[in-house]
């Protein structure tokens, strides 16, 4: 009887601990905590992107398209690494659907950026004009999905590119 009581006394806190841990895992972090974690990851990427694409606008105006392509390709590499790094961060349960939409939009943005770099590399101006517009459009769409999150560094800012 005494042994059973001891077992129950040990089991109850253990089960409670497991339950609380599992419910914590199911709920994920709070939105504020999630945003803070992502911003910490996005900040170096965003700053590196700005450095990488410095002078791209002047390069395009002077039709140094291959040079611009190298810069945009570098930005694409930084961007896709950042997206991969933030994709593994546990998401708040309540925002799971929104964040799935956001990551889908970020995927489309990555593709658009890659196509932009590719068009510049091929010096295909009509294609570049088209792809650049796509990239801006996809970026704005991605932003609008998570506007209530209040991201700064994880937001798409076209001014970083032009």
């Amino acid at each position: 009887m005494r042994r059973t009581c001891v077992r129950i006394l040990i089991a109850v806190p253990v089960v409670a601990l497991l339950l609380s841990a599992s419910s914590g895992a199911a709920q994920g972090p709070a939105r504020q905590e999630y945003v803070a974690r992502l911003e910490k990851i996005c900040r170096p990427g965003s700053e590196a992107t700005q450095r990488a694409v410095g002078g791209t606008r002047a390069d395009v105006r002077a039709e140094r398209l291959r040079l611009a392509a190298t810069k945009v390709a570098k930005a694409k590499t930084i961007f896709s690494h950042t997206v991969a790094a933030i994709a593994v961060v546990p998401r708040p349960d309540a925002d799971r659907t929104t964040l799935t939409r956001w990551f889908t939009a970020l995927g489309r943005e990555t593709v658009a950026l890659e196509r932009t770099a590719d068009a510049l590399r091929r010096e295909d101006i009509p294609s570049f004009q088209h792809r650049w517009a796509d990239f801006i459009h996809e970026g704005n769409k991605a932003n609008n999905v998570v506007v209530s999150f209040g991201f700064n560094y994880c937001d798409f800012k076209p001014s970083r590119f032009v």
Partner: protein
Amino acid sequence: MAATLLSGAALSVGLAGAEQSGRDGVEATLDGSITPDRLPRRHAAPVFITLSGSIQSSVGSPPPRLSRIELAFGAPGGLSTKGLPVCPRRLLRNATQRQALDRCRSALIGHGTILTEVPLAPSRPLLAHAAVLAFNGEARGHPAVWVHAYATAPPVSFVLPFYLHRLRAGGFGVVMRAPVYRALGRWPRLRFFRVTLGRRYRADGVLRSYLNARCPLPPRFHSLSLPLARIRYEFAPSPTVSIPILRACRAVD
């Protein structure tokens, strides 16, 4: 009620298709366009610019107080006020729209609408949908824009002063700043605005334009998305939300 529905519709229209940004429970938007949308590559041509923006709270409460608004647009050298009549700001104070036009029609440079919210009872804020006229002004020798807003129900008449600065460097040519809190006081909170700026006028026998722009693309390019405008909403005590927008620039030879 009809006015409220109209205002709500204007707000939702304003949000659709616009660039959005959010920070600390505030969501803001900016949309814009330039007319005509095809511009010469080398020399500036007369243009009209339409900008619209909105502010709302993402947490249900009224948005915080807007202390300052800053709008940047155009290219260096794109603003011309030479020979354009100036409207003294005092003539617009407490004026109806008709009175404002009677007194300053020659200085008219724009028009639009504005939606303000008076959160006297936060659960049922009073919405005022006002017609807006923009007049060429002058403050300490620098160009200014007096934005006169007038509504009949509820009765609202105020002048929002925008002080203009010509920029020599950077992506934009003109920046307009308005000390919203100092001009509007504690209660009216800006929710939505749409304004079209531009004016063709004759001075010294020459046809001029208040706003001018070109599409500076290299010869083989015909269209490219370039920065059109940027808005900065500064709320008190925080946050500051900045939204740049890019729009397609189409070049004609």
